[in-house]
């Protein structure tokens, strides 16, 4: 183990460490109020969600319109397990992860054989069904009344004779969210560089070629969908314990759209791009939330901007703000006005 010295780091590494340091001291900066911190947590939550969703359109090239379904499943898994059994957050996280993955497999296994269009529409129908179930199965979820009074997250060391520390206010949640984002990013990078990730990229770039290399399309797509769903559920379980109130309205199609928009904006398949997409869109959303009522418009109208962003991005920069070369080439392929495409892997002459 050599010593880690600052000058040994690459520029990217320095930026990363700088950003992390900034994120860690953020709550203590003078202008940061509880409201700002709240938004910051929201940004972090959406980072987890968009990183999770990114696996399906970004790594596999499939459109998933029902991500919020898994988010809702995770949130209600967490909410109900806390409400009825008082389980600890630390136990719930793996349970939510598994539950999300199970639903991902149940939905993905029969539908991922189909073409992309059908898959997109099935995921959409699924998420709508989830909302309907959450609204109407009142015996389980209390329906439109919502699920109030979910316990906050706590670190309970009483078993070992230690203290019990409950998360009160935004600050502990902020750090918890940072840890969760870091874990998610770490996992995403590891997956991206693994055999699994390479198989996904092969599928995304050319299915026929991937099959002829011996990649089992269905299996890899189901794995992708399940992992993506699992991260959605983890995000949901954090959300449930953070806001301590759930209602079916929180899991409408709009949320799926917003998360998809983050990926499209940031750059499909690019981990950094997706995170930046989350920062930009959550901030934009909050700014519009303040401005629109002043103009006498309903808050919902802010989705006009998101719709426009998606259309314009697809038209002018289909691979996002931070494109990765493979996706950029793919999205540009076949365009009449062909620009010079840099090859994804440099071939030296």
């Amino acid at each position, binding site marked *: 183990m050599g010593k880690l010295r600052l000058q040994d780091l690459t520029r990217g590494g320095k930026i990363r460490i700088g950003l992390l340091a900034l994120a860690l001291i953020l709550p203590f900066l003078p202008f940061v109020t509880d409201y700002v911190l709240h938004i910051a947590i929201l940004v972090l939550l959406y980072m987890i969600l968009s990183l999770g969703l990114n696996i399906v359109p970004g790594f596999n*090239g499939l459109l998933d319109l029902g991500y919020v379904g898994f988010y809702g499943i995770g949130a209600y898994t967490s909410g109900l397990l806390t409400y009825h059994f008082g389980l600890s957050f630390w136990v719930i996280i793996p349970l939510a992860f598994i539950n999300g993955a199970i639903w991902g497999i149940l939905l993905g296994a029969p539908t991922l054989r189909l*073409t992309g269009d059908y898959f997109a529409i099935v995921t959409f*129908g699924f998420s709508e069904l989830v909302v309907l179930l959450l609204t109407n199965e009142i015996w389980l979820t209390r329906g439109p009344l919502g699920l109030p009074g979910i316990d906050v997250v706590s670190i309970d060391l009483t078993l070992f004779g230690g203290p019990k520390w409950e998360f009160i206010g935004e600050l502990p949640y902020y750090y918890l969210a940072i840890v969760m984002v870091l874990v998610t990013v770490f996992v995403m990078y590891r997956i991206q560089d693994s055999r699994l990730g390479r198989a996904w990229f092969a599928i995304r770039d050319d299915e026929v070629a991937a099959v002829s290399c011996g990649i089992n399309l269905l299996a890899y797509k189901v794995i992708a969908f399940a992992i993506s769903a699992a991260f959605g559920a983890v995000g949901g379980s954090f959300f449930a314990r953070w806001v301590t109130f759930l209602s079916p309205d929180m899991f409408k199609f709009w949320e799926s759209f917003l998360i998809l928009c983050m990926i499209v904006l940031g750059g499909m398949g690019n981990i950094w791009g997706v995170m930046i997409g989350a920062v930009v869109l959550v901030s934009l959303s909050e700014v519009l939330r303040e401005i629109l009522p002043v103009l006498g418009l309903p808050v919902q109208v802010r*989705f006009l901007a998101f*719709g426009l962003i998606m*259309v314009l991005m*697809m038209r002018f920069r289909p691979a996002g703000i931070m494109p990765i070369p493979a996706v950029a080439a*793919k999205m540009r392929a076949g365009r009449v006005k062909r620009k010079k495409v840099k090859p994804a892997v440099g071939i030296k002459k």
Partner: protein
Amino acid sequence: MLLQQLVNGLTIGGIYAMIAVGYTMIYGVIQLINFAHGEIYMLGAFFAITFISFLGLPFYVAFLVAMACCAVCGVLLDIVAYRPLRQSPRLAALITAIGMSIFLQNLAMIIWGSRPKPFPHGSLPAYFEKTAVTFGGVNLSWFHVFIFTLTIVMMVGLNLIIKKTRWGKAMRAVAQNQTMAALTGINVNRVISYTFALAGALGGAAGIMVGAFYNSIYPTMGYVAGVKAFAAAVLGGIGSVPGAMLGGVILGVAEALGAGYLSSLYRDGISYAVMIIVIVLIPAGLFGKVLKETKKSM
């Protein structure tokens, strides 16, 4: 009770069929799920109500003018949003379609407000409410008759256009193979515009009828109706026009019966469930062909 549900189901089913035909035609021609089609339907209703309340047009005139406006909207939608992406992978076009759908929905919310609007008092023809026929304890109002007649006329008319006219022939050619159609001298873009115009006009008409039937028009009405109509198109086999018509009627009836006998809470869920089951079990639908992944798709 059963008959009444059946009548309602058939009425709504006919309207679903009119929207579903739009989805299926556009899919047939450019292989794109036009998510914004539901918004054209919503715009149709808003156009009608605007023409009636601001220009004082009588209902039937407003109906026709609104249909024409929807046709224009459909064409504009294609030119502005979809045409530049014709050669892009499917994913890009699909994302654009969703973006346009959300954009139009919120645009309508800005222009007309988010509260449900009724038609101005007395603007609907008075005989709509009167009972036309009574049989087996079921009251069939003139409005039902109006919707039935209009649906049938439009469906027959559409079939004639597709089967008998030169434009219809061109549309079928483009649906079969765009490149070959272009080689035989068909102006593909114009045919696509024409398809969007037809789909838009039908969708707009459906929107006006639903808006008048429930006497309530709101910006998000296209969202649910669009998904249901899409489910109908899938059920019939996407790309098949008679399939979409039949699919719409079946779905309307299934929904009315399901809501009446199973659970009215899951009224909307029935279409989603039908859609998922059909896609998983018989993706080709009743009349369709199995979709093949083309090179274009991503």
